[in-house]
């Protein structure tokens, strides 16, 4: 699996973790040796406290050394986890950025955020606990076997023969329990989902007088979950019981077996006691592995998702042969452009020209492919057929970042970053001075409400900061566009969510922004497109009509239909 490849980065830490674990195991053997010697001296040879003081001091010394080894081992294991996680998180985030907005769009973004945060953290237990334990479960019992065999052959064989039973049962149980656990986890998450669903729909339930009835349903669902899950668990726990039994009964067998041989004088007490003290420790690493197996499975699942993302190829490949950018006044031509989202076609041989300085509006039924054109121009996606040229140069031969600097883009839902209002506007031009930011805000009609925020331009906005209304967020986006001062303006349904009164206010800013620029206005609200120089009607992934407003109305085509649908009977007010 790929994760093993990633482990190379933490190889030093992994070696250290395992090395310290082995040392701790060796110290455990030493501890058992000292303990049995001390007890033997007092018990059978009548030694006084003074005789064993040095042994006890050594015991404490070994204990301290072992504590140090355990502590170092944990620190090293975390080091291993950190180096892999840090590296992986950076790579994942860089890759998600490279995959671009076409990939992170929509519902997937939430899941990606979870993968980058929780998914990576799920690797923590896997790397820190499970991976080193796999090695320790092999090494530490081996050390003990090597020490026990020369001391007592029979016990050595008992240990050797019972040890494989644990991994054997573990794998057996792991397979069955894995499926059971998954089912239980599924049931639990379904129940949680139901609860969340009810909480989110609480207002709706109230409207239909169904909210009280839910109390009973929640109780019933939870109770049902308890009953079905317990049935499953009864079996799952039974398998854990077997595992536990193997370890304890084996210890018991060792105790009885050496006891009987002691009785017959085949073995002396000191050796016997040494073996007895080691016996539980012999099984411990194997049992620990069994407990951590779960973290292993969860980690592997999380890792799978991370590598799936990392293996996704970006839609926009790096440009091999970059041409210099054309002058800031340019013709844009879309020739025969084809684009489909999966098997859902969006553009179907679309041809369109955007002339320097003109205001071109794109209208058409939703799903007609208007937004896709904007995404193509921003190079969030690449045409699957046909080409886009800028002054005759293919767009995909231009440097992507340099090209995007020529564009100011105002979308339907501008994203507000968790930063101050000033920083959010500065996005348009990272080198902007405060005076420039305030000027841009003024032009966008944002200065007034920003000044009214608790800390003015320094107020934190975004998800965790002050909540802005849709109109205010849109004005921040306009301020970014003013600051950007780019020759091409793309307005992607910029006023779609706003009410007419707010739209009225913002429209003035937009008109100001469009002055002296080429503007591409994407809208399903016809009220925003009347003033365009040219209107292109997009339907079914093609341009079906172009012309000015009056011209198109006269044509009695799709545009006219849209206009009548929009205005309803209001076309004639009286």
């Amino acid at each position, binding site marked *: 699996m790929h994760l093993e490849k990633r482990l190379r980065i933490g190889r030093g830490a992994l070696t250290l973790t395992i090395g310290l674990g082995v040392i701790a195991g060796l110290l455990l053997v030493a501890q058992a040796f000292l303990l049995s010697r001390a007890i033997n001296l*007092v*018990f059978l040879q009548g030694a006084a406290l003074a005789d064993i003081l040095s042994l*006890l001091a050594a*015991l404490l010394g070994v204990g301290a050394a072992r504590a140090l080894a*355990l*502590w170092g*081992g*944990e*620190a090293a294991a975390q*080091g291993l986890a*950190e180096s892999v996680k*840090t590296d992986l998180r*950076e790579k994942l*985030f*860089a890759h998600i*950025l490279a995959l671009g*907005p076409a990939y*992170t769009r929509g519902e997937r*973004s939430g899941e990606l*955020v979870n993968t*980058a945060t929780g998914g990576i953290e799920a690797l923590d237990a896997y790397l820190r606990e499970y991976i080193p334990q796999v090695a320790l479960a092999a090494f530490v019992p081996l050390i003990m076997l090597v020490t026990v065999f020369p001391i007592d052959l029979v016990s050595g064989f008992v240990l050797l023969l019972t040890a494989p039973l644990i991994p054997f049962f573990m794998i057996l149980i792991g397979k069955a329990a894995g499926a059971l656990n998954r089912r239980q986890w599924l049931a639990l998450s379904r129940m*949680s989902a139901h609860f*969340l669903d009810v909480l989110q729909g609480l207002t*709706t339930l109230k409207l239909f007088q169904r*909210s*009280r009835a*839910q109390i009973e349903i*929640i109780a019933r669902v939870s*109770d049902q979950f308890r009953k079905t899950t317990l049935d499953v668990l009864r079996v799952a*726990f*039974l398998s854990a*019981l077997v595992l536990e*039994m193997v370890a304890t009964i084996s210890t*018991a067998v060792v*105790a*009885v077996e050496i*006891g009987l041989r002691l009785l017959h004088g085949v073995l*002396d*007490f000191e050796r*016997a006691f040494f073996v*007895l*003290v080691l016996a539980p420790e012999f099984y411990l690493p194997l049992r620990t592995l069994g407990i951590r197996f779960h973290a292993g499975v969860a980690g592997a699942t999380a890792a799978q998702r991370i590598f799936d993302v990392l293996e996704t190829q970006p839609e926009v490949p790096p440009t091999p042969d970059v041409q210099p950018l054309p002058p800031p006044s340019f013709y844009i031509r879309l020739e025969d452009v084809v684009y489909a989202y999966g098997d859902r076609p969006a553009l179907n041989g679309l041809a369109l020209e955007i002339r320097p300085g003109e205001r071109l509006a794109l209208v058409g*039924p*939703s799903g007609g492919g208007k937004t896709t054109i904007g995404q193509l121009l921003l190079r969030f996606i690449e045409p699957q057929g046909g080409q886009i040229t800028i002054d005759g140069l293919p767009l995909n031969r231009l440097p992507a970042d340099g090209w995007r600097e020529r564009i100011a*883009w105002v979308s339907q839902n501008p*994203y507000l*970053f968790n930063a101050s209002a000033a920083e959010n506007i500065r996005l348009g031009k990272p080198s902007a001075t405060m005076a420039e930011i305030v000027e841009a805000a003024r032009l966008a009609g944002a200065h007034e409400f920003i000044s009214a925020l608790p800390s003015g331009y320094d107020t934190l906005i975004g*998800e*965790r900061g002050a909540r802005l209304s*849709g109109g205010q967020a849109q004005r921040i986006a306009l301020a970014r566009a003013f600051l950007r001062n780019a020759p091409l303006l793309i307005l992607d349904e910029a006023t779609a969510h706003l*009410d*007419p*009164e707010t*739209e009225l206010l913002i429209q003035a800013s937009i008109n100001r922004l469009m002055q002296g620029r080429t503007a591409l206005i994407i809208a399903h*609200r*016809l*009220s925003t497109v009347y003033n365009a120089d040219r209107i292109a009607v997009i339907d079914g992934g093609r341009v079906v009509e172009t012309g000015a407003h009056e011209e198109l109305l006269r044509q009695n085509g799709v545009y006219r239909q849209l206009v009548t649908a929009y205005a309803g009977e*209001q*076309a004639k*007010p009286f």
Partner: protein
Amino acid sequence: MALAALLGALTIASSIALLAASAYIIARAALRPSIADLQVAIVGVRFFGIARGVFRYLERLVSHEANFRLLARLRVWFYTALEPLAPARLAHHRGGDLLARIVADIDTLEHFYVRVLAPPVVALLIALLMGVFLSAYDVRLALAVLAVLALAGIGVPLLTRYLSHEVGQAMAQTRGELNTALLDGIQGSADVVAFGQQAAQLARVRDLNRQLSHWQRRMARIRGLDAALGALLVNLATALVLALAAPLARAGQIEGVDLPVLTLATMASFESVLGLPMAFQYLGNSLAAGRRLFEIVDEKPVFAAQDYLLTQSTPSNFDLVFENVTFRYAADSPPALDSISFTLRQGRRLAIVGASGAGKSTLVNLLLRFWDYEQGFITLGGRDIRDYDPEHLRNWIAVVSQNTYLFNTTIRENILLGRQNASETEMVEAAQQAQIHDFITGLPDGYNTWVGEQGLRLSGGERQRIAIARALLKDAPVLALDEATAGLDAVTERNVMAALDRLMEGRTVLMITHRLIGLQTMDEILVLHEGKLTERGTHAELIRSEGLYFKMWSLQNERLR
């Protein structure tokens, strides 16, 4: 629950007994007695070897049962407390995130018993057992072992907690910042890329990522102390027992055979305290989760449940009157509604238009008694709406709003929400009138298709039609439309409006909108601006007066006259 703790203690007691009995066999055997002397101990060893597994099994079963009961009770408790608060008291908590956190918090509390409460009880029982067992030999032995147990079970967790306090806070802070940076970069990736900020955002994430890693390493060095000190203290206890017992054995106060028994029993008893540092950590998490839940539950509902004057009666008409209603969401905020008065006679239609934030939706919230108003009064059928049981009041009002919530269940269940006991024919009829029937029957599972987060994603128009079908089934005399067509494109909007026309037939309609279309059929239009009524009249009158309504209307219809 006490049973589970007892079983947990018995599990550990079994392993203590197992090792003690094993030690006894070996020690006794070393003295070469007859085999008969060992019989009891041999049986004991076998018994305890099996008992440990069995007790562990029973303990798990009982504690999980207790856990699940607790979980059910917690959810019911929380829901019962939350239900009266919605939606007024939950409005300032933000959307789905808060609710998702609540669910996670309850899941955290669910483990409270097994992970937080049970381990100390088990440790206490084992300490008690060891105290009694060791005192039988010598009180000093008991005191020494108990002291070290306490050190390992209480001292070590307190120490690591103290040491990790600052690091933990720094870590949580950094983690929050990192998650925000990741969220910004992923959800805002279009803006990041469009403005060429990839490198800057990547640098931010890298920096925070390394900081977090630094704190996690430091945390591991502190948490590592738990296991390390635990191991050291086991050795200390063993050495102490030997040091105290050796002179006793020499003096003949205890038998030599007891020496290995005492040593191994002591070592085994530490199993009970080694899990306590973990319990302390869970305690912290549980307390935080509990605090957040109580913060919500402790809020007062907007009005207390009471005996309503008119519990069963239905008014003779559904005339709706607002008289000088003033309302603020918070005492220090500007009024959302300022002296609003209007009369809507049964069967008539009234539209309220204005910018978002002008207070339009507040009107509906007051009518539904989601909030309570202080000044003025609202009457329905001539009686103050506060005299009705809110449940009854809502029975007479159907609402179609902008945000239609669809539950994660079948389309059928979602429509039947309108009237639980509606027949199949009635439901299909409602769907037909809402013009969604053909769409539904075209789906692979028809009315049994699952919708919502885990099922089919419906478009805005389809959702609104389901909401209309619900309202048709509910068949209430008063209809409130709250921006029912907002966010739909022109063609879809027109189709939804057609379905709404069916719904409006014969009902008293309160329509809230910022889309100024189809308002000619309204009997009266109120223009709301910053909570105040600025204009009122029919569509024709408002156009003639050339005020705010006219300006908004013109914007939407520019060049079309």
